[in-house]
């Protein structure tokens, strides 16, 4: 446990030092990066060690002499710590060349401070073992990430994004408070361990409250609205951390509450699977509709949270229907997908960061041909795209494979579980197909073809500290995809520490599954190399020439004729019109001397579209009616406080 706090201390002091050193820009960055990455490295090694030597570690502090803050690292915490520290480590290295504006020195220093606070608070969230410690870390995490989102506060769009995020994270926190309040009300203890005394109906209520609260942090549909606004606003390495690991603390919360409540009603699993399917399909449909690179990736996080929830939900259904192999397959797949998503999503966000920094544009429709000028970025981005589409031989396939196997176990069950398993399998298949469409769109439009603007034509990819994390992350995608055994063990260790992995003999077949995946990957590579060899033989001594693309007889093609992201996606989006309405603005050509005309289109998010009518307006109306309470008279305000205390005294 001491190593863990040492890591936190180093990370935080690295961030704090930047404020003092902000006069020397490069030195300040070096100190910040060095502090944060050293701390993360220590934390990472410590977490890995604890994951493979499953012993619980406790520590408690006294706060104000009466309230205690306790922390504990068990397998589940250690698993999330691995993801948090690994991604933060690479993100901080990435930031060295990414934060490249000496004129914004102070702002960069503040950014490093909040970045370090965010990492530290995420680590504390997943290790907190009582309500106070948890909520304290949770709030620090929300606030520090809020300040990171409004890094570029001069743009009104970013301020709006920050505001939206602020509201969502606090309404979410309110729900979590309510859930914890219910627990405290029945157990009278701040600890995270005694829940036996709570009646069943209250347990269900606690689960629903905490699902809404944690779901709004994780980005579960329809509580995801803040996500596509906030993630693009932050600098790219922050987006990588937020999307890669911060939203996973929501998943951690759901899983932790589930294991705490220890109630095997099928309802939990059903809620989680349905939420997962909805988030998954809608998330990827909206992602497909975006042309802003970072917004697209943010929506894609909603989709991946959906896949994770489908996995966890299948696991929960397995528990409630007494099918241990279904439970273990679902939970393991879901948990491994947490790790996988944190790897490829941070890879993609950092890749997007380089593209945005070098071209100055976030819209893929003005990019193109970047693979030729940015070879490493492009290649790693393609690897990340294949991995996130869940295709072999990369890591996304492994976790989805486990979830599929879990889902098929559920097909043998009855009634509701059977129907949900069918739906889960089919929606996973549809999500996979749509993800492929979405990422071939990004790769094809942004990285391939010809540059659509001057900004995309003249670029380089200088900045070794930005490329190194990309290479490491894409290597990790391949390693997990080819040799999943160790990583599956990590997930199983995490689960057995909270009593979800059952007996060793239910885990035994897993070595076989991972062995099969490795074998399949090996076969793939053997065939790939053989075909490559065949191709080399066939081309031996042949004339190979270069010429323009065949334009079907048309001799004057321009780069503007290329398919854009909008046109690529429009055919599929047509099918999803009811859930993804296309808002088009077209001034039609009229008269003999038509004016200049323009066209724009936007895929609307139905949750965002209806939020205003269903929630914002009624709430505003209600608060408008209550406005008389706020009158500015300080005496009466003190009166309110006294009154509130007296009323409370009657109840306590």
């Amino acid at each position, binding site marked *: 446990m001491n190593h863990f706090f040492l890591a936190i201390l180093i990370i935080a002091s690295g961030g704090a030092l930047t404020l003092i050193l902000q006069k020397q820009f490069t030195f300040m960055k070096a100190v910040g990066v060095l502090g944060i990455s050293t701390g993360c490295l220590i934390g990472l090694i410590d977490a890995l060690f604890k994951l493979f030597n499953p012993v619980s570690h406790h520590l408690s502090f006294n706060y104000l002499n009466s309230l205690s803050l306790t922390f504990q690292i068990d397998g589940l915490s250690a698993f999330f710590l691995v993801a948090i520290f690994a991604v933060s480590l690479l993100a901080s290295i990435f930031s060295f060349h990414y934060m490249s504006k000496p004129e914004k020195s102070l702002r960069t220093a503040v950014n490093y401070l909040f970045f370090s606070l965010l990492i530290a608070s995420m680590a504390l969230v997943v290790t907190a073992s009582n309500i106070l410690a948890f909520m304290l870390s949770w709030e620090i995490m929300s606030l520090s990430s809020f300040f990171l989102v409004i890094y570029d506060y001069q743009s009104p769009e970013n301020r709006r994004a920050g505001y939206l995020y602020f509201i969502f994270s606090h309404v979410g926190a309110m729900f979590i408070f309510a859930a914890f309040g219910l627990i405290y009300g029945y157990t009278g203890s701040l600890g995270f361990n005694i829940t036996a005394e709570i009646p069943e109906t209250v347990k269900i209520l606690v689960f629903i409250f905490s699902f809404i609260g944690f779901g709004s942090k994780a980005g579960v549909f329809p509580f995801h609205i803040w996500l596509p606004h906030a993630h693009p606003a932050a600098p790219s390495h922050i987006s990588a951390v937020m999307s890669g690991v911060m939203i996973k603390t929501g998943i951690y919360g759901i899983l932790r509450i589930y294991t705490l409540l220890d109630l095997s009603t099928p309802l939990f699993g059903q809620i989680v699977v349905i939420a997962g399917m909805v988030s998954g399909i809608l998330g990827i449909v909206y992602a497909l509709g975006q042309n802003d690179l970072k917004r697209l990736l943010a929506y894609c996080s909603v989709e991946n949270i959906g896949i994770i929830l489908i996995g966890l939900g299948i696991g929960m259904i397995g528990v409630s229907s007494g099918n241990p192999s279904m439970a273990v397959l679902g939970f393991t797949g879901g948990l491994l997908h947490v790790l996988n998503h944190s790897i490829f999503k941070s890879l993609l966000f950092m890749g997007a960061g380089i593209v945005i920094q070098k071209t100055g544009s976030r819209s893929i429709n003005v990019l193109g041909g970047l693979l030729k000028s940015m070879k490493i970025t492009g290649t790693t981005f393609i690897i990340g795209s294949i991995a996130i589409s869940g295709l*072999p031989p990369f890591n996304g396939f492994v976790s989805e494979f486990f979830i599929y*196997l879990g889902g098929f176990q559920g097909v043998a069950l009855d009634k509701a579980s059977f129907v949900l398993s069918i739906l889960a399998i089919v929606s996973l298949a549809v999500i996979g197909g749509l993800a492929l469409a979405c990422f071939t769109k990004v790769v094809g439009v942004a990285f391939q073809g010809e540059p659509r603007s001057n900004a995309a034509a003249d670029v380089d990819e200088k900045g070794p500290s930005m490329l190194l994390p990309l290479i490491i992350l894409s290597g990790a995608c391949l390693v997990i995809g080819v040799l999943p055994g160790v990583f599956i063990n990590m997930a199983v260790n995490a689960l057995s520490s909270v009593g979800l992995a059952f007996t060793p003999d239910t885990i035994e077949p897993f070595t076989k599954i991972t062995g099969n995946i490795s074998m399949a990957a090996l076969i793939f590579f053997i065939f790939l190399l053989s075909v490559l060899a*065949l191709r080399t033989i066939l081309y031996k001594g042949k004339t190979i020439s270069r010429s323009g693309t065949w334009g079907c007889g048309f001799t004057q093609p321009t780069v503007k004729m290329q398919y854009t992201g909008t*046109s690529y996606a429009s055919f599929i989006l047509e099918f999803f019109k009811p859930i993804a309405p296309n808002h088009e603005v077209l001034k039609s050509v009229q008269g003999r001397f038509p004016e200049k005309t323009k066209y724009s289109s936007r895929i609307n998010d139905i949750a965002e579209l209806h939020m205003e009518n269903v929630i914002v307006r009624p709430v505003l109306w209600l608060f408008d009616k209550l406005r008389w309470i706020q009158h500015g008279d300080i005496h009466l305000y003190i009166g309110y406080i006294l009154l509130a205390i007296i009323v409370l005294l009657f109840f306590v």
Partner: protein
Amino acid sequence: MIKSIILWALAILLAPFFSAVILKVKAFFGGRKGSPLLINYYTLIKLFKKGSVYSTSTTPVFKMGPIVSMAASAIILLFIPIAGQNPVISFNGDIIFILYLLGLARFFTIAAAMDTASPFEGMGAAREAYFPIICEATMFMILILFYRLSGELTLSAYLSGDQPLSLWHGAGSPLLFVIFALFIVLLTENSRVPVDDPATHLELTMIHEVMVLDHSGPDLGLIELGSFCKLFFYSTFIAGLISPFDLGHPLMNAALFGAALFVIYISVGITESVMARYRMDRVPKFVLTSFALALFATIITLEFMK
């Protein structure tokens, strides 16, 4: 094992021949003599002898397209039982791996098409990205039914030995729906009429053909061979289901299986001869029919089983 490997090699060698059967049937309906049954071999040899011209817009990804799609097509044939024999490799969940491997091949085919900066190829790519989504949903629906019937998740548990017969016993006539759904998936995945027209010369109306416009020489040869193998894979799947009988002797089984294969390839030929290609926006509805059929079959079967 040796027998399975020989069958696998035979499958790759014979796949071009069977595809030529379709051409022959189309020629028959058109009142022509048609090209010889070995035409595809001549084409492949011709292509393999040539050199290549690459577009200046392309990157190495363009060359990866044919390699990955050929490798994937050869691998999926390893997993499918041919003529009731056990496949070369088989493991729990292999069918999921196969479907996702085809996804990988699709990823690279699309990426290769987008690499050329040609608007036509982008158009084809967008369509290629769309229709297989529905096909995958259908395939998984069929898998759910088969899993429910056999309790296994491997192709060999559905198609090897007398397994197809037990599927027929379990499902009965609803299995006809499944076969029809699989036939639709075959037509879609392999870009046949009424989804796509492999013979057309108007780029705007094509899907798969337009995506490979810029490939030439051995690259194009690999793509062609890969698509013959892929068609053979789907045909084998259906042939296994429509010839469920075990005649006792491997040669007899092989003959029966060959006959079933001919039936499927001839059906594809007849479909192409008597139907026109659907308008592009009608295609999704046609493909969705396959999903509806598979769902229907599952519901009926489960009702029978109760």
